[in-house]
Every structure is written in C-alpha cells, then in structure tokens.
C-alpha cells in the first residue's frame, strides 16, 4: 500500500509540482490550499497521513499554526511534518521547530532532493 502524503501550499503551481513528484515516486498525494483545508483533510480522512508537507505563509491558517493544531490531534504526535518554504530566517525556523516540524526545506527544491528527504524521514 502506498504511503499517503498531505501536501499543503497556497500556490496551485507548487501543488501541481508536488503532486507530480510524489506520484512519480509512488506516494499517494492529497492536496490542500491552506492550513484550514489541510486540517479538514486530516480530520475527514479515515486513514492517517504518513507525512505532511506544508508551506509557511498561507492565507486563513499558516504552516506554523497548522503544525501546532495537527500535533494535538490523536495519532499525529509523531507524524513527520516538513516545512517547504522560501523563508530561511533562523527566527522562523526556530518557530517551526518549536511548533513540532520535523524538517525545513528552502525553495527551490529539486524532485530528487525532496524524495531523498522523504525517504530518509520515513525510513
């Protein structure tokens, strides 16, 4: 059974890119355009997501708030969550770490790089 990955980004093009990369690598991607939609996807899903990849700056609910909320849901305390963003400020990374992020990737990324990170943290 393929592993389910929730990819959250307000940019439609980044969502498309993530979908292409994840599908090609054999994962099952589910997409959301902001934190609120992501939270809805997590709550409505019967099966747990194996990984969440989220952008930082998004409307409605940003990536940090999403991580904080998801961490409180049953079964998501240790689920890997990757931040995928253009932000590289130490202060923001620290916020992400405190909120419970597993890793931080600064855009632009290459497909191979993303898949290597995923394989490493899901190993």
């Amino acid at each position, binding site marked *: 059974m393929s592993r389910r990955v929730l990819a959250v980004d307000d*940019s439609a*093009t*980044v969502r*498309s*890119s993530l979908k*292409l*990369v994840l599908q*090609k690598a054999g994962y099952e991607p589910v997409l959301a355009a902001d934190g609120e939609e992501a939270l809805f996807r997590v709550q409505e899903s019967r099966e747990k997501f194996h990984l969440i990849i989220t952008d*930082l*700056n998004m409307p409605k609910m940003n990536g940090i708030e999403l991580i904080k909320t998801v961490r409180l849901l049953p079964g998501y305390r240790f689920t890997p969550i990757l931040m995928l*963003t*253009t*932000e*590289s*400020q*130490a*202060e923001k*990374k*620290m916020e*992400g*770490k405190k909120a419970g*992020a*597993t*890793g*931080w*990737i*600064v*855009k*632009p*990324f*290459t*497909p*191979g*790089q993303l898949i*290597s*990170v995923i394989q*490493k*943290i899901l190993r």
Partner: protein
Amino acid sequence: MLGYLACFISGLVLGTAAVSLVSRKKKPLQEPPPPTPIPEVEESARKQEDVKALEEFFLTVRNVAEIVEKVLEETLVEIRGSTEKWIEAVEQMVEGTQGGIAQLKTTITAIVSREEEETDDLLDKSRKSATQIVDTSRAAVSRFTECSDQFLGIIQELRESRFRDFKLQVEKVLRQSNILALNAGIEAARLGAAGRGLGVIAREIQKLNKMVDESLDAIEDLVESLESRLQEFSETLEVTAQDSVKAIEQGERVLEDSLAELDQRVDSIASALSGVGGKLDEVAGNLGAVVEVFQYQDIVSQKLGNMQGVVRELSEVLDEALASLSRSEFANVREELLGRIQKLYTTQSERRHHEDATGQECVDEKRVGQVISELGENVELF
C-alpha cells in the same frame, strides 16, 4: 501643488514651523536657564537640523527604491531563465516527437505492405502490450498539454493581475517621490553650500526612479513577449499533440487489422508507438524542468507581491509627508519605515538587497537544525 511644496520645503528648512523642535528643547526646572542664543546662531543650527532631517528622509526613500530596483532586476532574470528552460525542454520534445511520428508512419506503411504468418498467442500478448502503450501515449499527450496550458496560465496571471497591480502602485510612488525630489532640488539650490548633500540625494532619487521605471517597462515587455511566444508555442504544441494522437490512432487501427497477422508486425508498431509516446511522456514527466519552472514562477509572483507591499508602505509615508507638510513627518521616518518593510520579505535575496541598500542587518540565516550534506544545503532536519 509644486509651488506649494516648494514654499513648504523652503519654509521648513528655514525653520518657520518648528514647534516640536522648540518643545523638545525644554530643560528641567532645577537647571539654570540657558543663555539666550544669538538669533543668527539659533537659526543656522535649526536650518542644519532641518536639512539633516530632509536628507535622512530622502536617503530612506532612495534606499527603498534601491531595494525595489534590485528585486525587480532579479525577478527579470528569474522570469527569463525559467521560461527559457521550459521552452528548451519543450522544443526538444517537439523535435523528438515529430521524428517519432515520421518513424511511426514509415513503420506502418512498411508493415501494411508486407505479408506474414500469424501466431495467436503471440499476437494476443503483443496486442496487450501495444494497447498499453497507446493508453500511456494518450495520457502523456493529455498530461503534457495540461502542463503547457498551466504554464501559459501562470504567465497570463502574472501579467494581468500581479504585475498590473504592482505597476500601478509603483507608478504612484514614482510620481510622489519625483515631486519631492524636484522640490528638494530647488531648495538645495537655494541653500547653497548647506544644501549640497540634499541636492545630491535628490538627484540620485530621480535617477533611481528612472531606473525603477525602466525595469518596470523591461519586465512588462518581457512578460508580454513571453506570452505571445508561448501562445505561438502553444499552437505548435497543439498541432504536435494532435499529430501524435492521429499517428497513435492510425497505429492502433493498423494494429487491429494486423491481429490476423504475425506478432512481428504488432511488435514493430508497438515499438514505433512507444517511441512517440515515450517522447511525450519524457517531457510530461520531465519533473526536473517542470518543477523548477513552476517554483520560479511562484517565487517571482511572491516577490512581486512582497515588493508591492514595500512600495505601498513607502507610498503611505510619502502621502503623509505631502499631506501634513510638517518637519516631524520627515524626522524619524527611516527607522520606522525600514522596520515595517523588513517584515514583508519572505526570501533570502530580498533581505540581502535590503542589507546592501540600507546597511542594516537583516539577514539571519543561522542553522537551527542538522544539515545532511547529501540532502543539500537548503534542507535542515530538526
């Protein structure tokens, strides 16, 4: 308006409206009263202070314009680079696919003209494999045209929405700062030696405004030409995709007709079909190019949005300065404005340009997590 501003700045620099300045100079009651200044000395000091406030104000405007100009310049390179990569990938695909179609047609013609024996089992096996290739090819054509449409959509969105709003905002600021720079220039000339610094800054702002204006025009021209090039390209792609579908369908028909014939024929068609489908699939699945291009378009769009925020902040400051026309509006603007715009950046390069233009420390990229060399410098694991 210009005359009014000139009068204002003139009055301002001469210190006729410096109420706040007077109140700031009040001393505690315990201290002995200060000696009465000689009027000429007091006026000269006030004049110098006013000129300094104006200089700092204009320096701030110049710094912000520099940041916007640098980010625009970078944006131009990013749009051009990512689009060229995309076009190059697609050109290779079109060339390859056209070659593949020609090869497929030749194969079909050659096969139809031959007669050979048949073997049911092998035919069935080959049919299955060829049908699979036909399906894959169709899916590839559809995925590829989807990617292409999406790319054109991004460029159109960039031009019609994001860039148009940004341009309007920048044009407003250019008008405002040009008026101020012009008046500051007049005032600097009146002040003679005391206004030399102010005059230099005012001229630099006008120069920089011109550069920002030129960058805007260059981006607009580039985006427009890219759009028309992509439109033409899209038409070529449409024809290539249609040709591919036609060739695939023709191959499929011959394949059906060949079912009563030898598997070798089926295999040859299947192999030629695979060539066309494979080429299409190669580009549709050329994740490196697609993902990279899509990300750059996203980053460009984000930067234009951030710069729009920066320009909006600057515009508000200029509005206040033009409306209230008091010296206090010019003083202490720098720290407040630069502090506000720092919060608008989301990329490393924007912070670098801010640091270069203002001399203020803005980039803080210390490691927080662990960097694993094989994953790349842009990845940190916590």
